């Protein structure tokens, strides 16, 4: 059975052009870029070229881009970096209730270290309202970190406005743009952010390679100390093949982004319309318009997510759920709770995130299969019968 992959927000296969670009840097061009012989210089050059490509993708200069071991590391680096650099100035950090765990757990760690953290609420669409941020900023606030697009529900935050609010009060602004970069145009200068995290494997690049934009002039300590790589900002022998792959992926994203949106958005819209039409009692999560064009997050009332995923999987469909049961905790997705869903509904969530290898047949298959799956599980559910009885 051919797999129908609809979990592109979780990760993506590398583009064939990316693996092709990476291969030579595993074997022939394996040199340590810090070395001084000829072979090493070529490798160094390849890294700098990759940096230029990533910089171009986010509208900045190469010297403002650090390569780093993934999106989570980028978030940790930015947030802990500011915390340590500015701990003399203040101990208050603001973020939102719907951030990725890479941000939330970092903030919780900093709370243990004596920092205070405000987790801003969001509205029912998952939007952080600039007024709400404005109110939360204090004298001691040293950092605001708000994600650009939410990984679960796809809602896109008003980053430009939020960054302005922070800057009015002289506070640094970081955005976790891991789900945005490569999917939608991102320009750090227009957004006016001070730091931005990205991750290659979300846009057809390799896993384990991320990028952090740090505006020139922002001085934060390294998270990983050691050699002078990345101008002393991220120690460790560079993941050369990975970095080259990230560069190539950035280049391809620049070229294909428009076309991808044109192709993927109608597929997502069809999926949404048909599922909502065919399955009673389905809620669509996230903002109706300010939402990533590839993301559909729904809650199916009366049943729990994992069972749906398992049955989808048996039909060759790979999707995900913010359901507690897939993560091993008893709490459902913190994002769905933050947008105000009750626990029992949040438990029934499903996320389809589409990508460039999806076809209309893929969508049709899901539309065909999911209603039947839902019916089957609802037949076992005490809540569903209850509802019908009522």
């Amino acid at each position, binding site marked *: 059975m051919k797999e129908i992959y609809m979990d592109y927000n979780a990760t993506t296969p590398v583009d064939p052009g990316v693996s092709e670009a990476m291969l030579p840097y595993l074997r022939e061009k394996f040199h340590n870029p810090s070395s001084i012989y000829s072979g090493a210089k070529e490798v160094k050059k390849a890294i700098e070229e990759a940096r230029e490509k990533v910089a171009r993708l986010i509208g900045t200069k190469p010297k403002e881009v650090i390569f780093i071991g993934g999106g989570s590391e980028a978030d940790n680096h930015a947030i802990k970096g500011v915390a340590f650099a500015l701990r003399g100035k203040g101990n208050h950090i603001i973020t939102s209730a719907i951030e990725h765990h890479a941000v939330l757990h970092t903030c919780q760690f900093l709370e243990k270290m004596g920092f205070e953290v405000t987790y801003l609420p969001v509205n029912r669409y998952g939007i952080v309202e600039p007024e709400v941020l404005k109110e939360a900023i204090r004298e001691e606030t040293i950092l605001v970190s708000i994600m650009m697009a939410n990984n679960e529900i796809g809602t896109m935050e008003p980053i430009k406005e939020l960054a302005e609010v922070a800057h009015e009060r002289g506070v640094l602004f970081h955005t976790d743009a891991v789900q945005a970069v490569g999917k939608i145009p991102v320009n750090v200068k227009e957004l006016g952010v001070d730091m931005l995290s990205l991750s290659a494997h979300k846009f057809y690049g390799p896993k384990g390679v991320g990028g952090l934009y740090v505006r020139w002039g922002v001085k934060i300590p390294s998270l990983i100390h050691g050699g002078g790589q990345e101008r002393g900002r991220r120690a460790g022998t560079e993941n050369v093949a990975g970095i080259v792959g990230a560069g190539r992926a950035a280049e391809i994203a620049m070229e294909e982004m428009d076309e991808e949106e044109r192709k993927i958005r109608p597929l997502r819209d069809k999926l949404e319309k048909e599922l909502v039409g065919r399955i009673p009692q389905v809620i669509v999560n996230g903002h109706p318009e300010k939402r990533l064009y590839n993301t559909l997050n729904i809650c199916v009332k*009366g*049943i*729990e*997510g*994992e*069972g749906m995923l*398992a049955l989808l999987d*048996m039909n060759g469909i790979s999707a995900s759920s913010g*359901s*507690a*049961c*897939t993560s*091993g905790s*008893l709490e*459902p997705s913190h994002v769905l709770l933050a947008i105000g869903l009750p*626990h*029992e509904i949040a*438990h029934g969530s499903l996320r389809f995130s589409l990508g460039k290898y999806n076809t209309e047949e893929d969508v049709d298959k899901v539309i065909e299969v999911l209603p039947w799956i839902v019916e089957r*599980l609802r*037949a*076992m*559910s*005490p*809540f569903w*019968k209850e509802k019908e009885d009522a």
Partner: protein
Amino acid sequence: MEYSQKVMEEFMNPQNMGKIEDADGVGKVGNPVCGDVMWIYIKVRDGKIVDVKFQTFGCVAAIATSSMVTKLVKGKTVEEALEITNRAVAEALDGLPPIKMHCSLLAEEGIKAAIEDYMKRRSET
């Protein structure tokens, strides 16, 4: 989630699914807030569980353990049914992932609650 094949089979072909309208005992355990709710219905004749059904809101493991526990108690006496432990349910499924053991506990509790309900009704009449 690494489920055993047994779990997946049970999930795919659950037995004793549904409601018994004129049940002699009903056990309702779990909490929708936590994502797992199990309702167990039993029909008892001469101290024996002659019919049992479940309704479950929950994950793959919750559905599989529901099905398995109903299979295990069907035909048993009430006393025998009370002795079924969550371990026995899990073992019958070739084990459960550690973080899913609570589902087997729910199954044990569900049966116990249904029997308690049955006992209570009997003592009332």
